[in-house]
């Protein structure tokens, strides 16, 4: 099965005798240890989250306080400010674009999947490391390279990509159309190519590891839902990211080599271009073939994390374990055949619109099942509201609120009027953005003790939760109203239209709420880094949880378990089993040790 495993074990052996330490570089930088790689992903993700969130504050200032003089930011923004101290309108679009790109890809894909798939897969399935530690390392460093390129693109003179995170051509293909479509767009595409490579290497590794390296007794029907979610997410990524790669590649051809995949009938900057026969709609199909699965790549790991945390902290088995797996798989399959619901009014054949409306609304069913199962898990539980648990409950609340507005948008007839308005902005920021972000935070609070051997401060966690939870609703809920009134997204200012003169107060209010919510995230950042060194020492199993990672030493070394890997004897959700001495029975406890609580079919 695994040469890695043997290799790692000999390494450990070697260490014991010679006290040979890995060099700093091998241990913390070019590390092949999945735990270190997970932390690298996490910290890079936090960096990007602050940057991406900060950008949103800048454009919220423009929207909430259109007359504000921002000259105070001149040292940072330089020429991007007009002489009157206002944000330049093209820079506004650059901010919107980079905010979207950073949040979707770098924070919620790499930061979330990268962190928790890496950290939890080997620990929860009882493996010494990933199937290929080397490839795992490459996965991070490709992501790093991609990050560096994207970061550089922010500082170039013509500005970063500015055509929206969906980079629809021709806008993104023609430097004449906007300055961000010059070098900034090239860097965007190069960066994304590395990002895709990173995601694929990570994904292949996650899939191989889950299939091949499960410990003895850990069948698929005993796998924690976190692992199920990461596993399916990796498969979705593996099938959809290459399509984004092809879309990007054709765009590169159009931009640099004179092809006409996406370009036709264009007159720009005083001349007619020679391109004939291309279709901008083709790009949209290719983009959303990744783009839609991508939102599930973002939300499924968060839902997996939540399942684990809600069950643990309700001291109750997750309700409908099989239905949960079924809905993850159902969502994964359906996610590939709903992409064109982003394109109802792009001029696509209305017949296709009909089909995609049917398919889209079907995906609401597995999502609804998940929500009902979460609520039933809470019912008659013995609920402990740790910060992780609060964030998980917050996630479910967002998933409901944002999921329900999806029923409006997925209905093509209703979509005609709300498409590309703030209603959409509200919808996906709640259901995808905030929900996944809360999943990520919940995961950090829950597994911090395993990552760093110390506890995060609970009180700060509670404060962080409350400001964030109330804040997210205060920021994004009002946007529904603004959207229904027809306000288009990606507008620098609403002064040009009579129809959009209202809601100035509400926009100011949203901006203030956004600043407060963003500010509150620094409570988390402080708590995170402070607790890393000064936090209270963690006990072995702080949440009295069932899964295998809590059987490792408090700070697991290379290879995770010093001795043999424990075998698994039961499913991971034996909480509050009738007759049991305690309210949890970890997965590695055999039935023969718990005769008092075994069900009739569990006698060995």
């Amino acid at each position: 099965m695994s040469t890695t495993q043997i290799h790692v074990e000999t390494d450990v052996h070697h260490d014991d005798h010679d006290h040979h330490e890995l060099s700093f570089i091998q241990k913390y930088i070019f590390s092949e240890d999945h735990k270190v790689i997970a932390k690298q992903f996490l910290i890079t993700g936090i960096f990007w989250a602050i940057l991406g969130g900060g950008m949103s504050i800048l454009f919220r200032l423009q929207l909430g306080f259109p007359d504000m003089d921002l000259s105070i930011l001149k040292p940072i923004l330089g020429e991007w400010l007009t002489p009157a101290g206002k944000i330049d309108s093209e820079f506004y679009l650059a901010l919107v674009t980079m905010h979207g790109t950073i949040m979707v890809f770098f924070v919620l894909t790499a930061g979330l999947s990268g962190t928790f798939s890496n950290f939890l897969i080997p620990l929860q399935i009882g493996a010494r490391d990933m199937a290929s530690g080397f490839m795992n390392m490459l996965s991070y460093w490709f992501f790093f390279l991609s990050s560096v390129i994207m970061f550089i693109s922010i500082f170039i003179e013509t500005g970063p990509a500015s055509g929206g995170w969906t980079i629809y051509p021709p806008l993104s293909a023609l430097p004449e159309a906007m300055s961000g479509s010059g070098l900034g767009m090239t860097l965007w595409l190069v960066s994304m190519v590395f990002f895709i490579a990173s995601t694929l290497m990570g994904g292949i590794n996650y899939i191989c590891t889950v299939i091949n390296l499960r410990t003895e007794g850990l069948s698929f029907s005993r796998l924690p839902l976190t692992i199920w979610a990461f596993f399916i997410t990796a498969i979705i990524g593996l099938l959809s990211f290459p399509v984004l790669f092809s879309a990007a590649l054709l765009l590169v051809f159009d931009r640099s080599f004179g092809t006409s995949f996406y370009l036709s009938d264009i007159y720009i900057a005083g001349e007619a271009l020679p391109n004939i026969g291309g279709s901008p709609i083709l790009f949209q199909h290719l983009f959303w073939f990744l783009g839609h699965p991508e939102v599930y790549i973002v939300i499924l790991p968060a839902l997996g994390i939540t399942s684990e945390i809600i069950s643990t902290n309700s001291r109750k088995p997750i309700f409908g374990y099989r239905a949960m797996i079924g809905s993850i798989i159902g969502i994964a399959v359906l996610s590939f055949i709903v992409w064109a619901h982003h394109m109802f009014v792009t001029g696509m054949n209305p017949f296709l619109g009909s089909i995609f409306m049917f398919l889209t609304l079907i995906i609401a069913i597995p999502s609804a099942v998940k929500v009902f199962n979460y609520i039933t898990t809470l019912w008659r539980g013995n609920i402990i509201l740790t910060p992780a648990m609060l964030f998980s409950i917050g996630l479910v609340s967002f998933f409901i609120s944002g999921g329900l507005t999806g029923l409006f948008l997925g209905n093509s007839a209703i979509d005609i009027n709300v498409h590309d308005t703030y209603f959409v902005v509200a919808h996906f920021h709640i259901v995808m953005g905030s929900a996944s972000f809360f999943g990520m935070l919940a995961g950090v609070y829950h597994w911090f003790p395993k990552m760093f051997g110390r506890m995060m401060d609970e009180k700060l966690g509670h404060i962080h939760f409350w400001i964030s939870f109330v804040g997210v609703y205060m920021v994004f809920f009002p946007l529904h109203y603004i959207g229904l009134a027809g306000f288009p997204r990606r507008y620098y200012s609403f002064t040009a239209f009579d129809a959009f003169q209202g809601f100035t107060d509400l926009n100011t209010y949203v901006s203030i709420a956004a600043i407060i919510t963003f500010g509150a995230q620094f409570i988390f950042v402080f708590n995170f880094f402070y607790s890393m060194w000064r936090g209270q020492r963690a006990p072995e199993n702080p949440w009295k949880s069932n899964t295998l990672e809590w059987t490792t030493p408090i700070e697991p070394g290379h290879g995770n378990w010093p001795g043999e890997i424990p075998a698994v004897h039961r499913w991971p959700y034996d909480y509050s089993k009738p007759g049991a001495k305690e309210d949890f029975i970890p997965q590695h406890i055999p039935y023969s040790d718990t005769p008092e609580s075994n069900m009739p079919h569990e006698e060995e």
Partner: protein
Amino acid sequence: MSGIVLGLGLLLVVAILIAIFRVSTLLGIAKKEGQPRVGKANGINAFLLILFLIGSMALLFWYSYTHFDSYNLPLASEHGAVTDRLFWITMAVTGVVFLITQILLLTFPFKYQYKETNKALYFPDNNKLELIWTLVPAVVLSLLVFSGWKAWVDIMDKAPDDSEQIEVMGYQFAWAVRYGGTDKELGDSDFRLIDLDNRMGIDFSDRNAHDDFLATEIHVPKGKNVQFKIRATDVIHSVYAPHFRLQMNAVPGMPTSFWFVPTKTTAEMRDELGNENFNYELVCNKICGRGHFAMRYLIIVDEPEDYEKWYKEQQSWLKLNPDYMSKVPEELREVAAISAGIDGTTD
């Protein structure tokens, strides 16, 4: 200077907060000994969840009720009535689900908060329950989908033959609008013929183009079928007229269209709203560059008689730009002059 002061102030606030945090954690460690598994914070947080539920629901209903008119744009098209109705049906269905699920989700942590003496119910599955909440959403959703689908098919159906055809073209950063002229037929166009004056690239070798006229405002007749023939010449734009619940992208290289029936004239809407400056507006709703936020065009809905009157008063583009006669093929010039209204006696 003010920047430095602000920065220092911020730094001071952060420093104070950190000091408070340090003191409280030290105190916390001192009294940590012999604490129960779950502290007081649990009850407080559970209570706060309920408080949040009540507060936010109150805010939601209050705002939705008192500000109803500000987020509901008045309606001025036939199909808009259908989509608005669908919207409110969906709102009713999702609203009920929203209320029930949020209430359960946010009250359970209070009701079932941790107690040392309690034991959670071991309840891993129940096929009947799961079947119910798979099937019920499935049925409700199929009803929603079906009504949505019927509306969609009607709206997207081919425009009736008697539709007024109006060409709307997006470019960075404005709209150009063309009518068919006396023959009501739009002439051909080609992006290679575009120049600074002939912004739409009208092809004057086509007879139908000679009487076409461009309009600085879109006029449409009330109660008649109107079809927008939509195109773009540089990047994607989107024709969005929220009062008509009308939206369709303008795509370079791929003509699109949208037809509708306006139901209220501009004058009627002005009366209804008590705002004599009211105008229907056309908006760009697909990111298209620096001037995306300012691509405004007016739509004027007239009574059919007024519309016809206005239509007849318009002068053909060729008449206004006689230089372009040279682009008309030799053999068509005479006919062109007549249909463009330049018949010798220029007045």
